[in-house]
């Protein structure tokens, strides 16, 4: 991978120009990310400075008007929503990828992939509207109020399913055909090939896809805001309404001032840290896959 760069001994002039242009664009993206981080730190500084950050993990709860900024309940809710969505979407996504690579008739492969791409492209507010008018009333009939952790998990699972399915399919496609043919030559059944050869070989690619999906789930705002109920509490059951960090920011930012506003920026910083960690993990996974 890396050594291929050094095979080109000298760049032509056109190449040099292109290198400068693309290089500066890449740099601009990095600078932009740095500026976003700086803004988040600067705006949240009033509450972070002087040990004020401990307020995010102590106190009675989230009562910004009373100066109480305990984020823990919303942090747990955020993690529970994403974990639950992964729990549903990963098995389904991987199964759908296995089907389209190993069992599906040829004519069905492309339509299936198109549908997945389409699902991935639906705006989140559309998912949210559907959730609010169809899913939430359905859950409410079962156990009111309906707007709950469960609804949020189901909506998120639907939203990240295409990511998981498409990345898993790509990972399975990258398994060398010789491995599969070798396994077939040894007399393994198709089930044996899938479970014993293809999935283990593709596992790092699948894992990376799942991490990318987790990042999307953590950052999703609009759809969750519409179906989760937005009550600040640590979820004790699937039917409890919860408020995730992103929804909190969207709900309160237009009206927040002073420390309240700074606390919202600090919660964005926290989200950014979690996502950065996941991205780093995904990057490590990707590096291993290429070895």
């Amino acid at each position, binding site marked *: 991978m890396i050594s291929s760069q050094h095979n080109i001994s000298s760049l032509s002039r056109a190449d040099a120009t292109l290198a400068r242009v693309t290089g500066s664009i890449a740099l601009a993206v990095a600078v932009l990310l740095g500026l976003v981080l700086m803004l988040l730190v600067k705006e949240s500084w009033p509450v972070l400075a002087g040990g004020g950050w401990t307020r995010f993990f102590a106190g009675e709860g989230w*009562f910004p008007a009373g100066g109480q900024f305990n984020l823990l309940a919303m942090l747990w809710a955020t993690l529970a929503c994403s974990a639950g969505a992964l729990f549903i979407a990963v098995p389904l996504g991987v199964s759908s990828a296995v089907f389209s690579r190993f069992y599906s008739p040829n004519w069905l492969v492309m339509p299936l992939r198109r549908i997945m791409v389409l699902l991935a492209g639906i705006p989140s507010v559309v998912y949210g509207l559907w959730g*609010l008018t169809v899913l939430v009333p359905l859950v*409410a009939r079962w156990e009111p*109020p309906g*707007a709950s952790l469960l609804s949020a998990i189901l909506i998120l699972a639907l939203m990240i399913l295409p990511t998981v399915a498409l990345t898993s399919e790509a990972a399975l496609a990258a398994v060398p055909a010789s491995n599969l043919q070798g396994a077939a030559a040894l007399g393994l059944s198709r089930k044996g090939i899938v479970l014993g050869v293809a999935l283990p070989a593709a596992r790092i690619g699948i894992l990376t896809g799942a991490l990318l999906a987790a990042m999307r789930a953590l950052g999703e705002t609009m759809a969750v805001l519409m179906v989760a109920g*937005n009550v600040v509490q640590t979820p004790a059951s699937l039917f409890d309404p919860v408020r995730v960090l992103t929804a909190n920011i969207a709900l309160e930012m237009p*009206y*927040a001032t002073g420390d309240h506003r700074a606390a919202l920026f600090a919660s964005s910083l926290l989200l950014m840290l979690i996502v950065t960690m996941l991205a780093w993990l995904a990057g490590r996974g990707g590096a291993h896959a290429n070895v």
Partner: protein
Amino acid sequence: MKNIEVLFYRSSFRFVMIALIAASLIGTASAAGQKIVLTGSSTIAPLALEIGKRFEKLNPGVRVDVQSGGSTRGVNDARAGLADIGMASRALKPEESDLMAHRIAIDGIGIILHRKNPVQALSDEQIKEIYTGKITNWQQLGGEDRKITVVNKAEGRSTLELFLHHFQLRNSDIHAHVVIGDNQQGIKTVAGNAGAIGYVSIGTAEYEEAHGTPIHLLPMAGVPATVANVRDGRFPLSRPLNLISKGAPSGMAKRFIEFAQSAAVDDLVTAQYFVPLAR
């Protein structure tokens, strides 16, 4: 000879420059004199901002600066002269008689239930007990055996403020099952849950109810929740939105207040879910 010519050109150039700078200074000075500062209620601020934009378009060179900070700030700033116009989402108190209130719109909220819910009226006390979690089933209020889903607004919304103020509640006393952002989300939440109770701006709810959304507005203290009753000041769960001036307004402030009270901004008032004035 040449030197003199050069000198002449130079000095005339300098003169032109000075004249230009002076003109631009005078220009900015007069534009700065055309600035209207409004401070106060965060309920009115978004509306004042929209009215300000339209006012600026109609009066080139005028700038309208809107800052929120609560009705109390609006009253204090208008009195101290820190703002040309204050904004207060309440009537003036007797001790504030040195100021003048100019009503620009009325804010009214209505309690909504699902259309299938047979409960037709609730007293203030009952609503209070529902929102504080003392009553949890519609059966206790003569309805069907169904759990009550309490729909509340997110912190900072003006509807929440008016609701809390009317029922003398604190937000931390409320046991909500769903917290919503805007009116539409509230209406969809109640429309999708037969046991839900919520409160939203009357204008939106009346429109949705008339267009087939399965909700119904409850009367308050026997007064039906309609835009007309809010406009007449008969509906209890409502409040005036006022611009405040110290004494009779004059100059640009007077023109702005007259513009904000005119029919030319009714569409802006309605777009913010407030009720325009009766004229």
